[in-house]
Each structure stands twice: as structure tokens, then as C-alpha cells.
């Protein structure tokens, strides 16, 4: 008989003894013990609300046995619970009859039909036939809750999953129940739609067909969907997804519940950006992101002309082979898979011998900092006592990471110290705000870690410090003495500020708080994998510097770069000055992503030849000498790495359009043309080569990745985390996952495997290797503020002018126009009002833009989002002011009204 401990209780479930965690609901304890209790409103990732009554069970009490909602009642010591008595069955039968009396029987035309919890549970537990002969309710339909989510009110069973998600998980209660009794309906406030970045999740967890998403509505039937599990590459969070397709086109993405990363949630960009894949190839200009690149092209007589692969490869190979290594470079790589990144590094560094390879676009952080700092996992950050946020707005950059981190603070388990300037996603939940003006992060961190002198320096700003002594005292208390339990999120909070400031601040935190760990919030898809694969000057594959590169690498590399190469910005300058003759651009859109418009313009119009490897059109593609069409997102397999260093598998679901190839294939062909044979005969060969040649990925073979303990991916180096078997999916938590074809996902069988960690297959033991060393702290010159100017802050927006959003019609419509946000105090100083147009002038240029007052923007600063266009325009407006050669950008503002 099982024994209870301090953390557990033992109760009787259908006549057998079952152990539950203290405080655990009966429904969850029963599920772990293999008894599945039907449910609608209960969702394992949200607080129970007990309002659907489907999970009623019989519980024996002092006054006889009573029916209780098992989602709402915690298992108690000695409790006697029965889930299958006649009384329970009668209750389930009754609940379903009630639900169905107001539910239309339009299953044949309902998107949920075939994967519907109400349908499935009615068949399992329902009355079998109806006594309801009256006319059903009829409502006007569908009601648009937002641009993406539609509501069919008569189908709603008032479970409240969507409203609870919006409130509890997303923290944006923009939808709520209105009315009472049978007139209850989910509704928004007039004029305030459910415009949340997470709205698609409500569609995913709706247990009936009441909520549908515009891109999927009437697009397919569940039984026609084919499914593969993969990882979302929309940002570097690495959410696990099920990619579903019909007739060779991706039709829907569903979040897969993993304990380690996304808890089943996705952001709307990740969920709906697949629309861009289906864009029809040749209808758009080569510079348009909506254009899919479907065939290789070579510039002939000034025009890009479609050619065969062999012709394009031979042209590209002759450009690369006939140029001295120091005149060859490569920009981009964050959109590649690990295999693509490893293949390109092998070609560029190991065959051609150039070190000028940079996956970051002048908007990232020093890779030796990213790779050298002690790294936290997402779970560690979510469970941290104190979280220091020294990054851009995470909701805009890494939306699901924000959900995970918000959860701790919203339940008051974690305290957040937020250093961002301007409105931040943590406004409502942060314990302390210490807004750092551009260039001030090192001083703010110094003040935070006990340096009173730094407080005085900050107070010398013409507009004063952005926080007071109380705030700093509270923050110091939260941080503690050595940083135990502290996780720091580092990233670029502004592209108008030299990365050196945040890098120095991070190093200072590491010195002052040696036990603190760091979560590098570089946002671009697989930028972390690209850095791991050595796609940065001075790095070799496997998180080692070129000097420490594995000696075994000589078996693969015929050459080794002799000097440290150029970063992206240096490469662009070298292209302009004629020092770099050939540049491979890997999936990047230089015009939109590099925070220096002039420089890109000069580089693109120089005589340096560009070999563009791309899936979508861009100005870079249009300016290229050779264009190689690449398979993107769900068109390729391989692995990707997220910001915690988790390597997870990508599932190929559809075939790339036209002649597009996977990167490793074109690299192998190029190498062959250049006279070197890379030993890559298949994608698995590349994955296994990474496991051999990249020290950090040692032992991460295809067989380990394919094992059931690696379903959620594996954090490298192996041994960093304990591998778990994934809990089987709850079919009612994410309807649609279990009903579709089970490729890569455990089929739901009614029994739930336990989540005990498995002792076997912990992977190879930890391999010692000399990980990249942290950079030395440099003395930074404080940039003296100009009392007449405002310092520019330029952060990211989720819906911007980037390829993913622009190529997806549903998302492109949601991009908001650029505005300049300033503190009301500064607005007053220049005599402007919210909504007025102002002229902004930096050393670089001028722009005219609408201005808005924002109380969270610190005095003396102005915030304009990066890669966002002015109303009706599709150019990155703030580029007019940005200059990559200065540490901070000061702008003068004048009112035009």
C-alpha cells in the first residue's frame, strides 16, 4: 500500500490506493494514476474554475457520498473517490444533455467536427439520443472578437477557458463573459477588440467550435490533416508545435505542451506566419517579401534570369573560388537550421578559409558573452526568485518566453527588476522599475549592485535619475549578495545604442553576482544555433574559439582561417570600400534588419558580388549576382537551438516550392564544385557530424534526438539537464492534436504515462571542453547627455515589416504605424500634444513623425520602434535617424503644429 509523506496524500480511487501531491486536484491525480475523468473547463495549465460540471465524481463524506467537481476538489488523505458509479454516469449524462440542449448540431459544417471534445465526450459519456425537440438558439454569426478570432455564440458552452486564458496566462482580460444564465456570451468591450499577441491560444483550447481563427476557418477538415511535430522558428524561444497540412499546404499550427518551453502556448505570429509559405511564387517583385524564390537565378546582362542548379552552383563556386579568402564573407544565418549553419561554416571557414562570417546583423550581442556567461534555462528563469530584465520588450521579441516569465511574477513567486526604458511588458507585474536611458545600463547596474557613486552619476542627468533611492534599495534587497536565485535576461533593448553598454552591464552583473545565471534574449530564430555552429568571427563550431577548435576538425576542414574576420557591419563597410568582393547573404534582409540604412545602401550598390540564399524576396535578393532558392520553415528537417541552448528537431511537413533546396545540399554541391568533398550524403550525416565536430554538441546524435526522452529537445552540452519522458498529451487540453495523424507524437490511448525521470539514456557524460572565454570589461566612455536633445530608443515590435509578418496576409494587416513616444514632460517642453507631428533630427538625418505621450518613457528620451513603417509605408522609418558608428543617437525634436 502506498505511503503518504509530507508532500503527498493517499486516497482511494475506484477502490485502489492512489498517491497524490498535497493540494493536487482529484482530476489531475486520477489522470496520473491512469484514470481519465471527462472535462471541458479544466485545463492543466490554468486555475480550475469548476463551472462545466463534466468532471463530477462521487466523494464519500460524513453525510454520505456527494457529487463533487474533481477539478476543484483537492485529493485529501483517506478520501474515497468513485469515478464510475451509476450516480456519476447519470450526472455526466445529465450535464451533456444540458450542454447539448443549447448547442447546435451543425457538426458537419463546424471546423471542430472530428476533433471536438464535446463530440467525443458525448459519444463516450452522453445520453445517446436527444429529448430536445424545441427550436435551438440562433445568433448572428460569426462575431469578430479580433482580426484573427471569430466567435459563433450558439456553439459556446461557457467553459471560460478563453476568458481565463486571457486573464490568467496572457494578463490581458480583453474578453469576458457578458450576461447571465443561458444568455452568457464571450464578448469584448465595444471598440476594444481582443487584440492580444496570444489570441490564437483561445482558439486552440476552445473545447467546441465557438472560437475559430480566420486563417483556418473552413480551410480543412481534421481527418484530412496530416501532422508532424516540429519547433517554431519564428523567434528564439523554440516553442514545440504540431504542423498540420492538407493537400500539400500548411493549414494550421498547434502548440504542443512541453514542460520545458511553451506549456502548449504559441504567439499569433508563430501560429499564423505559415501563411507566408503558401504565398504564390511569381506574382510579386523580387524585392517583395511575399515573393517565394522558387528557382536558382544568375545575373545575366544586368537581369536576374532563372537558370538550372548546376549553372547557378558553378557561377557561385567560381565567384567564391576565384576570390582571396580575406575578400569573401557571409552575413546572416539565423534563419538556418543547425545543419544548414554547420554546413555553411564548414564551407566558408573550412573550405574557403574566410573567418568573415556573422549570423548577427549588427543588432545582436558579442557572441563570446552570449556563449561565455553561465546560462539559465527557461524553467530556471521562470522559477527564479529574482529576475533582472536587461533586454528589449520580451512580449515583442520573444512572446512565449514572456508568458513563462510573467507567470512567476503574476503569482508573486518571483520579483522582477525591470531596466527597460519605455512601456515594458512587465509594467503591471514588475517589483521594481529602474529605467536605464540609452548608455546608462552600466551605471544602473553599478547602482543596483551597491555602488552609491553610480547613483550620483545618474542623478547628474539634466532631467535627473529615472528612479529614486527607495527603488534602488528595494532592488538591492531583491538581488541579495551573491546572486543566488537570480536570473538575468540580457538582450538589445535598443538598436540606437551601442551593444557595448548592455554587454558591459552584463559583465558587471556577472562579476558582482557570480551565482546569477543568464538567459541571452537574442530573438532571431536560430541565431543561438548559428553561433553554436561558429557563425561569428573568431568562433569554431561547438562554442569554442578558433584557437581552441577541436583538432579533429582538420578531418573535415581543408583550410582554417588565419586571422579574425569581420562582423556584419565591418563586412558592409568592406564591401563599400572594395575590400570584400564576394558576400554570401544567408536568408537575411539587410535593408530591413541592419540598423544603418546608408551603409547597407552603399554596400548593396557597390561592385561586391552578392550570393543570396533565400526563401523569400528582399532588396538583397534583388541586388544579388546569384540567387539560390532555399527551403524554409516547415519545408525542411534538421534541428534548431533556442535561447537556452535547447536543440530540438524540426519536422518537414511540406515540400519546398519549385526547385528550392535545403542548405546542406547546396553547400555540398558548392564544395564539390570547389574541389572538396564534404561527407554529407544526407541530413542525418550533418547532424551526426555536428555531434562529432562541435564540442558543445558532443554525443547529440540523431538516435539520441529521436529517442522519446528527447521529444522536448535536449539542452547542450549534454548533462546540463535531466531528460524526461514527455507526459502523453491530454486530448481535451489541446483538441486537434490527438485527433490528427500521430506522427512524432504519442497517440492518446486513454492511459497516461508517469512523468518520473528515466535513469537510462542521460546521454553521453558531460564532455569537458574549453568553452568560449568571456570578453574583458572595457572602459566605456560615458556619453554626456545633451540637455536640448532627446536620446533615441529603438526597440522591436512583434508585428513589424519583417519577412514573416509581411508575407502573411493575416498578420501584415495588424502591423501598427510608427510613432515617436515621449514623456509628457518633454512633449510639454517643445509645446506639442499627443497626435501632433514633429520633426526629429539626428546627426544622420531627419524624419517627420506623429508623436504620442507615454508616461513610461523616461524624461530626456524618445522611443521609436525598429522596422516599423509610417502609416501606409513599408520602409523602416527609424532608419532615417540611426547611425551604427555612434554609441548613442541624440535627436532634436521640434513641433510642426
Amino acid at each position, binding site marked *: 500500500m502506498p505511503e503518504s509523506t509530507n508532500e503527498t496524500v493517499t486516497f482511494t480511487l475506484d477502490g485502489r490506493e492512489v498517491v497524490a501531491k498535497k493540494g493536487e486536484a482529484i482530476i489531475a491525480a486520477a489522470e496520473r494514476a491512469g484514470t481519465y475523468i471527462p472535462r471541458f473547463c479544466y485545463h492543466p495549465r490554468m486555475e480550475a474554475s469548476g463551472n462545466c460540471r463534466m468532471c463530477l465524481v462521487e466523494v464519500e463524506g460524513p453525510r454520505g457520498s456527494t457529487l463533487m467537481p474533481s477539478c476543484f476538489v483537492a485529493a485529501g488523505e483517506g478520501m474515497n473517490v468513485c469515478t464510475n458509479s451509476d450516480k456519476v454516469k447519470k450526472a455526466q449524462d445529465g450535464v451533456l444533455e444540458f450542454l447539448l440542449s443549447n448547442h447546435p448540431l451543425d457538426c458537419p459544417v463546424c471546423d471542430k467536427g472530428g476533433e471536438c471534445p464535446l463530440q467525443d465526450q458525448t459519444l463516450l459519456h452522453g445520453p445517446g439520443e436527444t429529448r430536445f425537440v424545441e427550436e435551438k438558439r440562433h445568433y448572428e454569426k460569426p462575431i469578430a472578437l479580433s482580426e484573427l478570432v471569430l466567435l459563433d455564440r450558439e456553439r459556446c458552452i461557457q467553459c471560460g477557458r478563453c476568458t481565463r486564458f486571457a486573464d490568467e496566462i496572457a494578463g490581458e*482580460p480583453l474578453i469576458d463573459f457578458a450576461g*447571465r444564465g443561458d444568455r452568457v456570451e464571450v464578448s469584448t468591450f465595444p471598440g*476594444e477588440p481582443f487584440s492580444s499577441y496570444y489570441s490564437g491560444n483561445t482558439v486552440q483550447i476552445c473545447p467546441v467550435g465557438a472560437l475559430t481563427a480566420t486563417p483556418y476557418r473552413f480551410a480543412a477538415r481534421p481527418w484530412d490533416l496530416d501532422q508532424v511535430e516540429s519547433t517554431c522558428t519564428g523567434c528564439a524561444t523554440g516553442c514545440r508545435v504540431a504542423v498540420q497540412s492538407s493537400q500539400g499546404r500548411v493549414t494550421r499550427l498547434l502548440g504542443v505542451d512541453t514542460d520545458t518551453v511553451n506549456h502548449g502556448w504559441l504567439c499569433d505570429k508563430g501560429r499564423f506566419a505559415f501563411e507566408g509559405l503558401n504565398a504564390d511564387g511569381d506574382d510579386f517583385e523580387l524585392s517583395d517579401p511575399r515573393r517565394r524564390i522558387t528557382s536558382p537565378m544568375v545575373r545575366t546582362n544586368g537581369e536576374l534570369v532563372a537558370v538550372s542548379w548546376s549553372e547557378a552552383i558553378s557561377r557561385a563556386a567560381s565567384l567564391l573560388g576565384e576570390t582571396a579568402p580575406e575578400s569573401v564573407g557571409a552575413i546572416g544565418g539565423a534563419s538556418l537550421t543547425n545543419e544548414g549553419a554547420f554546413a555553411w561554416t564548414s564551407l566558408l571557414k573550412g573550405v574557403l578559409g574566410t573567418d568573415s562570417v556573422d549570423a548577427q546583423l549588427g543588432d545582436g550581442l558579442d557572441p563570446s558573452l552570449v556563449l561565455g556567461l553561465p546560462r539559465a534555462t527557461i524553467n530556471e528563469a521562470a522559477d527564479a526568485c529574482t529576475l533582472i530584465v536587461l533586454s528589449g520588450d520580451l512580449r515583442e521579441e520573444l512572446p512565449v518566453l514572456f508568458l513563462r516569465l510573467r507567470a512567476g511574477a503574476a503569482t508573486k513567486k518571483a520579483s522582477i527588476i525591470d531596466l527597460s526604458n519605455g512601456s515594458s511588458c512587465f509594467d503591471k507585474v514588475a517589483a521594481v522599475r529602474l529605467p536605464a536611458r540609452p548608455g546608462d545600463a552600466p551605471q544602473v547596474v553599478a547602482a543596483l549592485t551597491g555602488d552609491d557613486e553610480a547613483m550620483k552619476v545618474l542623478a547628474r542627468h539634466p532631467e535627473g535619475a529615472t528612479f529614486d533611492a527607495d527603488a534602488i534599495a528595494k532592488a538591492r534587497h531583491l538581488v541579495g549578495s551573491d546572486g543566488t536565485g537570480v536570473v538575468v535576461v540580457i538582450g538589445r533593448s535598443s538598436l540606437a545604442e551601442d551593444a557595448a553598454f548592455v554587454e558591459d552591464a552584463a559583465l558587471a552583473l556577472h562579476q558582482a553576482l557570480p551565482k546569477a545565471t543568464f538567459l541571452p534574449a537574442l530573438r532571431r530564430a536560430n541565431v543561438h544555433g548559428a553561433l553554436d555552429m561558429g557563425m561569428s568571427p573568431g568562433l569554431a563550431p561547438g562554442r569554442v574559439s578558433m584557437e581552441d577548435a577541436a583538432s579533429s576538425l582538420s578531418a573535415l576542414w581543408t583550410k582554417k582561417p588565419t586571422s579574425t574576420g569581420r562582423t556584419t557591419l565591418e563586412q558592409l563597410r568592406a564591401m563599400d570600400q572594395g575590400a570584400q568582393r564576394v558576400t554570401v547573404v544567408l536568408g537575411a534582409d539587410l535593408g530591413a534588419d541592419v540598423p544603418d540604412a546608408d551603409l547597407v545602401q552603399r554596400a548593396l550598390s557597390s561592385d561586391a558580388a552578392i550570393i543570396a540564399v533565400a526563401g523569400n524576396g528582399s532588396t538583397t535578393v534583388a541586388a544579388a549576382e546569384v540567387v539560390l532558392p532555399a527551403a524554409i520553415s516547415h519545408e525542411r528537417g534538421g534541428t534548431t537551438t533556442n535561447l537556452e541552448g535547447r536543440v530540438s528537431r524540426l519536422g518537414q511537413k511540406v515540400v519546398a516550392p519549385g526547385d528550392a533546396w535545403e542548405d546542406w545540399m547546396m553547400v555540398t554541391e558548392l564544395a564539390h564544385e570547389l574541389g572538396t568533398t564534404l561527407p554529407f550524403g544526407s541530413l542525418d550525416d550533418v547532424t551526426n557530424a555536428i555531434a562529432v565536430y562541435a564540442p558543445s554538441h558532443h554525443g547529440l546524435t540523431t538516435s539520441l534526438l529521436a529517442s522519446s526522452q528527447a521529444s522536448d529537445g535536449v539542452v547542450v552540452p549534454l548533462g546540463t539537464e535531466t531528460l524526461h519522458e514527455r507526459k502523453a498529451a491530454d486530448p481535451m487540453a489541446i483538441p486537434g492534436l490527438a485527433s490528427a495523424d500521430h506522427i512524432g507524437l504519442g497517440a492518446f490511448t486513454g492511459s497516461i504515462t508517469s512523468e518520473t525521470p528515466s535513469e537510462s539514456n542521460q546521454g553521453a557524460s558531460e564532455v569537458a571542453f574549453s568553452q568560449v572565454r568571456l570578453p574583458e570589461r572595457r572602459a566605456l566612455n560615458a556619453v554626456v547627455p545633451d540637455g536640448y536633445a532627446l536620446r533615441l530608443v529603438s526597440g522591436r515590435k512583434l508585428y513589424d515589416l519583417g519577412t514573416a509578418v509581411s508575407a502573411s496576409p493575416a498578420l501584415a494587416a495588424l502591423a501598427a504605424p510608427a510613432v515617436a513616444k515621449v514623456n509628457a514632460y518633454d512633449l510639454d517642453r517643445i509645446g506639442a500634444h499627443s497626435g501632433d507631428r514633429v520633426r526629429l533630427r539626428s546627426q544622420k538625418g531627419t524624419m517627420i513623425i506623429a508623436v504620442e505621450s507615454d508616461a513610461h518613457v523616461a524624461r530626456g528620451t524618445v522611443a521609436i520602434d525598429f522596422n516599423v513603417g509610417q502609416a501606409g509605408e513599408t520602409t523602416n522609418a527609424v532608419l532615417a535617424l540611426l547611425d551604427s558608428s555612434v554609441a548613442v543617437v541624440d535627436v532634436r525634436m521640434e513641433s510642426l503644429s
Partner: protein
Amino acid sequence: MSYFTDGRQARAEQLIAIYPEQRSALIPLCHLVQEQDGYLSEEGMVAVAELCGVTPAEVRGTATFYDMLHTEPVGKYLVGVCTNIACLLAGGLELLEHAEGSLGVRVGATTEDGLFTLEETECLADCNIAPCVQVNHRYVRTTTPEQFDALVSELRDGGRASEIPSHGTLIRTRRDVDLAADPGLVAQERAARRAAVEGQS
């Protein structure tokens, strides 16, 4: 600019201060808006949302749940006729039907002159004088069709002004003392009241 007029802003702030969580003042604030406007307009709900730190959708969700909160304009006089069991047996339904006829509107609607809104209500807790009728939540003790018609014409002529305030006014005398933001004082007062109740029994 405050949404409230005539010193109601101060009252709103007082209401928020007496609760440990500001959102707990949501319903009292809704009544305050109704006292001012007669119903909860969208602007009024937005104002309540801002004061309570919730979204307007949540205010609307709450307001639409309760019968005494109206999100559509109502007449100057909200006439409620009870049709619960005691009143039903005493002719509540017939009185309601009569009211529809004499006001010329269906249940739930407002007369064209904007004076009367007719409502069918659940038990109003005045069963000894059934069928029970309320005007703006005040008992009018009108049980027969004739009495009802007399009441309507009296109200049309501006009668009973002292007895029946305009719609939305729950109470006309208000405890204004000791309601400042002192939770200790509130707790003390509550404890004293409880002790007094216990002492009586």
C-alpha cells in the same frame, strides 16, 4: 478630467480606498455612475475600469450580470412588477400585462416619452403586499390595475418626487464619516458592529 460630476469623484476615491483590492469597488462604482447618468454608458464603464485597474470588458462583464445595473438607457422611472410565486398567485402576471397595456410598451422596453421602463422582476421581498411593484427600487404598494394607473398618471404629473428619486439613486443619505482610507478604522468599526450584534443575541 474626471468622468464624475458634483463631487462624485471624491466619493469614487473613497469607495476605492475602503477595499483592500481596488477592483473590489467595481460594483459600488457602477452604481455611482448610474446615480449620475441613470445607466452605465460605455464612457462610464471605461471610467470605472480605469479607477478599478481592470479592463472595460471586465466591467461590462460584471455590469451585464446584475439586473440592477443597466447598460442601456432606461426611463426616468424604472417600473418593476414581481411575478415570483407569491405575487404570481396574487395576480402579478395580470398586473404586468395590464402595465404593458397602460404604458403601451412590452416588458423590457421604454415609453416613447422616455419616462417609463417596464421590467418583470424576481422576488422583491415585500410579499405581504402582493403583487409587489417597485419604481426606481422603491416600494409603491400598488396592487391593483386601478392603483397602477393612478400611480402612472401621478408620476407623469411629476408627483412623489420626494419619495422616488431619479433612477440610479440607491440611497439619498450617505454615511460620509470615517470612510477615509483607513483600513484599520474600517476593521475596527466592523469588529464593533459584530460585537454589538453578538451582544444583542
